[in-house]
C-alpha cells in the first residue's frame, strides 16, 4: 500500500508535465494579447509591440516554455503580466477562500446527500424516493446562479440573517466566516447534493437486494445499522468516486458562486486570468488544480480499498 502511494506520488510528476505542456500550448493557441489589455484601447501597434517584447511574448514558443520551466524548477511561479504581482502571492491570497468554501460544501453535501440517497433507496418507489429524485433533478438543472440569487433573496434580503455577499477568513472569527460562507456553500452544495444523493440511491439499490443484508436483518440488527453499516459500505465505491471527482469539479466550478457572492477565490481569479490572457496566472492555476485533483483522487483511490477490501493495489 505504501509502495502504491509512493508510486502514485511519483506518478504525479509526469501528470504535471503533461498538464504543463498541454496548457502552455493551449494558451498560445487561443487568441488574445495580454499586451493589449495592459495598454488599453487607444494604444498603437508599435506600443503594443514594445510591451510584448518586454513581456517576452515575442520570443519563440520553445524559449518561452523553457523559461517557464526554469522558473518552476526554481519554485518560482512567475509574475502576473497584468498586475505585475507575484503569482504565488496571488494564489496564496485566493486559495484560502475557495478551499474553505469547498470544504464546507463537501461537508454539507455529504452530510445531507448520503442519508437522502440511502433513505430514497430504502423507500424505493415511495413518495420519499420521488421527493429525493425530484430534488436532485432540480439540483442538476437549475443554474447555480439562480440558486444563489434565491438564497440571497430569502436569507439575506428578506430575513436578514446573513450578509448578501463578501468573505471573511475563519481567522477573523468563526461567526463572520460562517455567516458569509454558508450561502455560497449551500449554493454550491445543491448540485453536489443532487449528484451524490442520486449516486447513493443508485448504488444502494444494487446492494440492498444482496443476501448479506438479509443476514444482517436476521441478526436483529437495527434498520439504520443495516443501511449505514452493511449496505452503505458496500455501496461506497461509486459514491466516493463521485465525491472525489465532485471535489475537483468544485475547485473549478466555483466561478459562478464566487461572482454571485463576491468571494475573492481562485475560481474568479482563473476566469479573470483567462479573460485577460494572463498566462503565468493561468498556468499556475491549472498546475495547482491539477495537483489538487491528483491528490484528491489519490485519496479516493486509497479509500476504495478501505471500503472494499477486495480491491487491492
Amino acid at each position, binding site marked *: 500500500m505504501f509502495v502504491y502511494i509512493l508510486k502514485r506520488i511519483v506518478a504525479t510528476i509526469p501528470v504535471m508535465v503533461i498538464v504543463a505542456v498541454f496548457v502552455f500550448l493551449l494558451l498560445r493557441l487561443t487568441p488574445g494579447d495580454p499586451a493589449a489589455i495592459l495598454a488599453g484601447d487607444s494604444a498603437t501597434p508599435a506600443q503594443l509591440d514594445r510591451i510584448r517584447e518586454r513581456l517576452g511574448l515575442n520570443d519563440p514558443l520553445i524559449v518561452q516554455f523553457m523559461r517557464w520551466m526554469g522558473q518552476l524548477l526554481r519554485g518560482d511561479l512567475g509574475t502576473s503580466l497584468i498586475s505585475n504581482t507575484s503569482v504565488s502571492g496571488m494564489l496564496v491570497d485566493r486559495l484560502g477562500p475557495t478551499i474553505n468554501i469547498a470544504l464546507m460544501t463537501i461537508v454539507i453535501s455529504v452530510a445531507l446527500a448520503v442519508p437522502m440517497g440511502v433513505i430514497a433507496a430504502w423507500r424505493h418507489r415511495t413518495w420519499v424516493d420521488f421527493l429525493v429524485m425530484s430534488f436532485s433533478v432540480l439540483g442538476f438543472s437549475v443554474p447555480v446562479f439562480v440558486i444563489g440569487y434565491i438564497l440571497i433573496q430569502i436569507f439575506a434580503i428578506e430575513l436578514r440573517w446573513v450578509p448578501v455577499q463578501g468573505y471573511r477568513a475563519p481567522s477573523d472569527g468563526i461567526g463572520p466566516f460562517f455567516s458569509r460562507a454558508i450561502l455560497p456553500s449551500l449554493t454550491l452544495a445543491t448540485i453536489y447534493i443532487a449528484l451524490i444523493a442520486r449516486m447513493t440511491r443508485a448504488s444502494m439499490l444494487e446492494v440492498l437486494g444482496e*443476501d*448479506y443484508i438479509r*443476514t444482517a436483518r436476521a*441478526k*436483529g*440488527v*437495527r434498520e439504520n*445499522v443495516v443501511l449505514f453499516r452493511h449496505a452503505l459500505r*458496500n455501496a461506497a465505491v461509486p459514491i466516493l468516486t463521485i465525491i472525489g471527482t465532485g471535489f475537483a469539479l468544485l475547485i473549478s466550478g466555483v466561478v459562478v458562486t464566487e461572482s454571485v457572492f463576491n468571494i475573492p477565490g481562485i475560481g474568479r481569479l482563473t476566469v479573470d486570468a483567462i479573460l485577460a490572457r494572463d498566462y503565468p496566472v493561468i498556468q499556475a492555476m491549472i498546475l495547482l488544480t491539477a495537483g489538487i485533483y491528483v491528490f484528491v483522487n489519490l485519496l479516493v483511490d486509497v479509500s476504495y480499498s478501505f471500503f472494499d*477490501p477486495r480491491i487491492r493495489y
Partner: protein
Amino acid sequence: MEFKSRDFSQAGRVLKIRKLKVGLTGRPDAEPVLDGIDLDIRAGETHCLVGESGSGKSVTSLAVMGLLPKDALEVQGGLIALEGVEITAASASQMRELRARKIAMIFQEPMTALNPVLRVGEQIEEVLNMHTDLSQAETKKRTLDMMEQVHLPDVQRIYQAFPHQLSGGQRQRIMIAMALILDPDLLIADEPTTALDVTTQLQILKLISEMQERQGTAVLFITHDMGVVAEIADTVSVMQHGRIVERAPIRDLLTDPQEDYTKKLLRAVPNLAPRAARAATTAQEVISVQGLDMTYGGSGFFRKSEGVKAAQDVNFTIRPGQTLGIVGESGSGKSTVARCIMRLIDPTEGKVTVAGTEIAQLGRRQLQPHRKHFQIVFQDPYRSLNPRWTVARSLCEGPINFGTPKDEAMAKAAELMELVDLPRDALDRYPHQFSGGQRQRIAIARAVAMKPDVLVADEAVSALDVSVQAQVLDLLDDIQERFGVAMLFITHDLRVAAQICDEVLVMQKGLVVEHGPAAQVLADPRHDYTRNLIEAAPGRQWDFANFRALELAHPRQGATT
C-alpha cells in the same frame, strides 16, 4: 444404530406453524410456493426438514424469520407463532427483538450471506453489540471463543479476515458462530454443513446438541444429508412441491417410510462403500500436476504478513475417464488446488499440464483457447452465476465462445436443463429465482456443456438433495463414460467420494497426507487423519437404501458389491 427417541410432548412448544401459504407477491392466484405447511417444534427437539431441492425448505425458514424477499414472495395465509408470539403479525421492531435472541438462522449460502466488506470478526460481534451490554473486550473474547468452538483454525487471523479470504467451510462456520453466539431458543439451520468436512461437521453437530441440552434449544435443521438426519433428528418432515408429504420420528421414517417419495429419497442415499474400480486405462493422462504450491497474500494494509500457505507440493495425474477425489478438512486447500488448475489464480510454483499443454505459466490470452479443455463447477454456485443473466445465457456462454452457433447452443442448453432435472421454462429465469440446489445444477450444466477433457467439480453436489444428487452423479458418470472426461472431484462427503472416485487424495492443512485408489484409501486408510474422517462420517452404520442397519462386521465387503 442408535436413534434419538426422546419424547417431547411435555416440552414447551417453541414454533408453531399452521396452514402456512406463501406465494408470489401480488399474485394470489398463481401456484403457491408453500401450501398448507403445518409444523411444531418443541424445546430441545431437533426437527429435520428434508426433501427435494426447490421444495420450499428455505422459503419455510425465511418465512419464520420474517425475511421473505418482499418484492418476490409473501405470506398469503396461515399462521406462524414463536413461543406464542405471532410472527406474521409482528411489527418490524418486535421482529428485530426476536431475531438473534430468540430465533437465529444459519443461511444456506455462506459466501453471499456474509458482508464482503466487513471483517468476519466484526460481523459476529455485531450480534453481541446489538443484543447485549458486554464491554468491548468481553465481546471480543466471546467472539473468539465462539470461533474456537466452531473449530476455526487460527482464530486471530480469521477474526481479522474478510470473507473472500476464507474457504467455503470457514465462511460457513462464521455463519454458524453468528447464529449460535446468543443461544437462541429456536435455531434454524439451512444446510449448515454443506461445505464442511465430516470431522468438522461432527463437531458442529455436537456443538448444537450441547447447546440443546444446555438451553433446550429447538432446532429446525434443513439438510439433504441423510446421514446427518439419522444422527441428529428427533422428528423428520419430508417436503415436496411446497408441501410436507410425510412426518415421522426418525426411526419410523428410516425403517418404515410410508410415502413413495420418501422411499425414493432414501433409496438414493449413496453407500459409503467404494464402488467397483473401473478398468484401469492406459491412455495418456490428460492432466498432470507437479509440485503445485500456492501461498496467498503476503502483504497487509500496513504491515507485511507471511501469507497463507494454502497448498504445498501437490502432485497427481488423471487419465481420461477416471475420477480423482480430493477430500479433506475445510480450509485444507482443496479449492485452492482447483483454482490453480483452472488458472483462476496463478500458482506460486509447480506445473500443470492439461491435454499436453503446460498451462501454469501461460499468459491469459494464450491460455484462453485451451480453456475449453478444462472446466470447473464452483463451490459457490450463486456467485458464480451472473445475476443479470438468464440461465439460458449463462449456459450458452461457453459453447458460443468456442464457435457453436447461438441456436444450437440454445437447443443444447434446453437439453442440459432436462439432463439436470430442471424445467425447460426455467431457462428464462434469473439465478436469484432458484433454490440453492437448483443453482448448483445450473452450474454443473454450464460446465458440462463445454464437453471438457478435464472437469473440476468443487463440492458440486453438496447442495443437492440425495435423489437429485444421485441423478447428477449418474449424469457425471455418463458423461465421463461417453466423452472420457477426466474428473477432479472435490468433496467432503465420503459417501459421494466412495460412489464416484477411482482414486482419492486426502488433504490436510495444505498438504497431501494420503493418495491412492479409492477402495484402499476409504476401506483401509493408512493415515490417522483419513481414519478420523471415515469414523466421523454420519450415519455410516445405516443402510438407507434398504431401510436397515449395516452389518459393520464386514466393511470390506462393501467394496466389492
